[in-house]
Structures are given as C-alpha cells and as structure tokens.
C-alpha cells in the first residue's frame, strides 16, 4: 500500500501510544532515510516492523525511543509532541520506554543483575524496593543461575534475554526491540517471541523490528513494512492508518 504525503495534523485517538504525522528523517545532510511516515500505534498493540536491510527500521525505532529527531513532521509519544518538549523533559519520557538494542549494549563490567537493575536505579528506586523483583525477572527469562555473571561470559541467547530483562524491568508502557532474534537459533527466537507475547498480554505495547520473515509469518501479528524509508505495506492487521489518509 502506498502512502500519499500528508502534512496535516489529525486528531489523535485517545489510546494511541505512538503517532507519526508526515515524519521524515535524515542523518546530518545525508539523504532521507525515512520519508513522510503517517501511522498510529494503539496502546497495548503488538506490531512488527519489517523490511530489507537499510529500509529504515532502526531509524524508525530511534525516533520512538527519542535517540533521534525527525527532520520533518511530528512524532507524538504518550500524547506529547516530542519536538515541542524541553530537553529536560525527555529523560522522564525515556523511562517509560523499554528498548532492546540491536547490538544489545550491555555493560561488560557490571554483573547480569546490575545490568538488569539499571533502569530502576536510574529511575531513583532504592535497592531494597526492587532487588527481589529483578531476581524474579532474571529467573523468568532463564538467567536465575547467571545473575552474577558478566556479559562477556554469557552465551548469545543469554545476552539477548538479559537485554530483554533490562528493557522490561521498569515495566515500560512500550517495548521496542531491534532485531531481537538476530543472533539466536530458531528455538531461542521462539522462546524470546513468547516472552514478548506474555509481556504484551500484561499490557505492554510491543514493536519489534525484524527481517525474520519466518517469525513474522508464525506470529500472525500486524506488520508495518518499510522499503527505502517509506511504508509500502500495512499487513493484514497493520497499524491503523491516520484518519485523513484513508
């Protein structure tokens, strides 16, 4: 499905957690990596972002987790136009987002437990308030016996699950995962996917960027397909197009 350009702001549905209004993005003075994106993600939804390498999947996620700014258009997050927010307001917004980075970015000098507890420390909680929750979460992702281990000593799948534990420990309202099954075998990919489904069942909005078509096919979840920075298709239950685009 092709998307026609549209710069008009549409009234936001009350339950939209993310809304893109005619969003384009470029790095520096380079070419546009995302062009005129218009879509909205309802709260509690589960979406895949698919497309070939270089299609703009990671850039789209970066806009949502506030690691990049659009060069045109507006990104609305939790009902706020992120462009209009003061930089001092962004950290609080980021604390409501969980991210599984493509390259995981675990801190090698910290234990698995410290890595997983990191967002709670940042949010200012006392260790006594969360240490049992962190232990429980690590056990839930299958790292109950590896809590003291440092990331370099963990296997690929363990690192992936640790990154997921860190992303969800603060009970984020939205979880973004960039190629979360990129470095694991099929069995581990399915286990990780089941984790996401379970989190979604508990109310977390999930957005997964992947080029794993097998996983997408098996999951039967809405898909937003990108090619050359443009939305080329919204899957059978894809993200709701903006009202004025219909």
């Amino acid at each position, binding site marked *: 499905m092709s998307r026609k350009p549209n710069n008009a702001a549409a009234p936001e549905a009350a339950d939209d957690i993310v809304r893109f209004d005619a969003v384009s993005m470029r790095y520096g003075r380079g070419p546009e990596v995302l062009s005129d994106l218009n879509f909205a993600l309802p709260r509690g939804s589960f979406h895949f972002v698919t497309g070939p390498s270089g299609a703009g999947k990671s850039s789209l996620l970066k806009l949502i987790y506030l690691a990049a700014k659009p060069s045109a258009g507006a990104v609305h997050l939790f009902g706020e136009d992120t462009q209009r927010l003061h930089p*001092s307001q962004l*950290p609080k917004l980021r604390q409501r987002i969980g991210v599984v980075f493509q390259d995981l*970015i675990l801190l090698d000098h910290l234990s698995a437990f410290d890595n997983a507890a*990191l*967002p709670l420390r940042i949010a200012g909680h006392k260790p006594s308030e969360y*240490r049992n929750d962190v232990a429980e979460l690590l056990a839930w992702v299958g790292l109950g016996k590896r*809590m*003291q281990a440092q990331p370099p000593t963990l296997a690929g799948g363990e690192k992936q699950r640790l990154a997921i534990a860190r992303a969800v420990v603060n009970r984020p309202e939205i979880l973004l995962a960039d190629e979360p099954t990129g470095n694991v075998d099929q069995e581990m990919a399915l286990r990780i996917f089941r984790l996401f489904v379970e989190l979604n069942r508990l109310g977390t909005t999930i957005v997964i960027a992947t080029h794993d078509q097998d996983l997408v096919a098996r999951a039967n979840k809405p898909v937003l397909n990108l090619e050359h920075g443009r939305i080329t298709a919204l899957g059978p239950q894809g993200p709701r197009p903006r009202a004025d685009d219909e």
Partner: protein
Amino acid sequence: MSEPFDVARWRPAPFLPERDARDPALIFVVAVLCFLACLTALGVIAADRAAGGWANQLTGEATVIVRARGGETPDAAAARAAEVLAGVQGVAEARALEREKAYELVRPWLGDSADLEDLPVPRLVAVTLEREQPATADQLNAALSAQGLDTVVDDHSIWIKDIRRAAGVVRWTGSGVFLLIALAAAAVVAFATRAGLAARKDVVEVLHLTGAEDGYIAALFQLRFARIAAVSGALGAAAAAALGATLRLIGGGEGITPALPIAWLDLLAVLPCPLIAAAVAAVAARLTATALIRTL
C-alpha cells in the same frame, strides 16, 4: 567455586568501572602539574618575604654624607652632625663612621697611592630610625641645615621603591605561572574526560537512553575525575612540601639562601592544592561531559 548469589546482600555496583588502564598516566601528569603549581606558590611566598625583609631593613636606616665647612675638620663636622641627628624625633641612634670607612668608599676611584688625608673626603653618619614613627629625610635635612651643616641625606627611598617593584613583578609573574599551570591541569582533565567518555560510550549511551538526566551522567564523570585530581593534587603537594622542607633544612635558619627564605609555616600553603585540583577537574569534567552528552 564461587559462592551462590545472595540477592539480599546485593549492592549496586558503580556505573563506571572503578579502575581504568589510563588512570596511572593521568594521575602522574596531574600530580606533576600540581607539584609545579605548589613550587610556584612556595617561590612566590618566599620571594615576597625576602623583598619585605629587605625593604624593612632599608626603611629603618638612613645615611648622611657630611662635608666640612669653614675651618671645621671633617671628623668634627661628622661628630656634630651625629649629635644633631640623635636629637631629632624618630631617630633611635646616629653614629659617625670612622674616617677609614669613608676612605674605603673613595679608594676604588682614587687608588691606594693617593694621600686621602690631604683631600676633603666627606664623612658618613649612619642613622638608625625608630620603627614605629621613623623620622623623614626632610626632618633630618631641616635639623642639619638649622645647625649650618653641609649634608646630603639618603633615606634609601629609591632602593625601597625598586625592591617593592621587583617584589610585585615576582608576585604577579608567580601568579601568572600558577594560573597557567592550573589551566594546563584543567585542559589535561578535559582531554582525559573526553577520552574517558569516548571509551565509556556504552555506559553513556545506555544511561542516556534509559532515562538518566544529562546532569546525572555528567556527575559520574565529574566525581571520578575530581577524585583522581584530588589524589594527584595530594601527591604533587606532598612532593612540593617535601622539597620545600629539604631546602629549608639544608639552607639553615635562613632557608636555602637569604634571597629565598622558606619558613616552616609556608609549607602549609600546599594544603589547599588537592581541593583546588579537585575543583578544577570537577568543573572541567562537568563542562566536557555535558557538552558531549548533548551531542548524543
């Protein structure tokens, strides 16, 4: 075999690794800069004291040149001038110097063969002034003229002015050198912070994207480099104090030379060095870290 993990005993680990392979080099460089800064401070204090001492000595003395008039002999004129001067308020003592003293002063120009007894060589009167309210050159001149004496009064004011000017130059130069060294230390710390941030980009990125405020991240680096600078400052200050103490000991009661007298109390001047180094490092690290985080 390692002990099983006890969740109840877990304590959060520091976000930044406690040790970095580059720390020893940084500590050495900052310690050397602090050592140089402390030495500069000690040098300025000692030079200031020396200049003050010289000025004080000269302020308390005056020299009067007396020329004989009429049938009066030079020795009689000098004795009379000393007597007159002793009676002036603000003069503690006036003493006519022996004729040999006067001859010694002119002999380099006239040679040993000259018969100085035949020449009207002026005599000298050494005057010691009272410390509290010393007599001025004008007062001395007035008293001597009133008694018909042909004299020239030298209260050393030209020398005192020169010494005070020299002391000022030393003080300002020392302060300038001190400031330059402090700036160099700040630049080193800023450079190290930048390198530290680059090496710990993963920490900065994760903290930033999980919602840490810029100030919180900057504070981690600020604290780390302030601590390193404080340790370096303490090492540099201790080395400078040790060198100062050595100079004081081997130089005797007046220090290494009377020109640079170091007192034991002067060594206390190095005490603020660790604090100043930590403050400079904290500011440099804060500014550098904040600027870099904003580029993320």
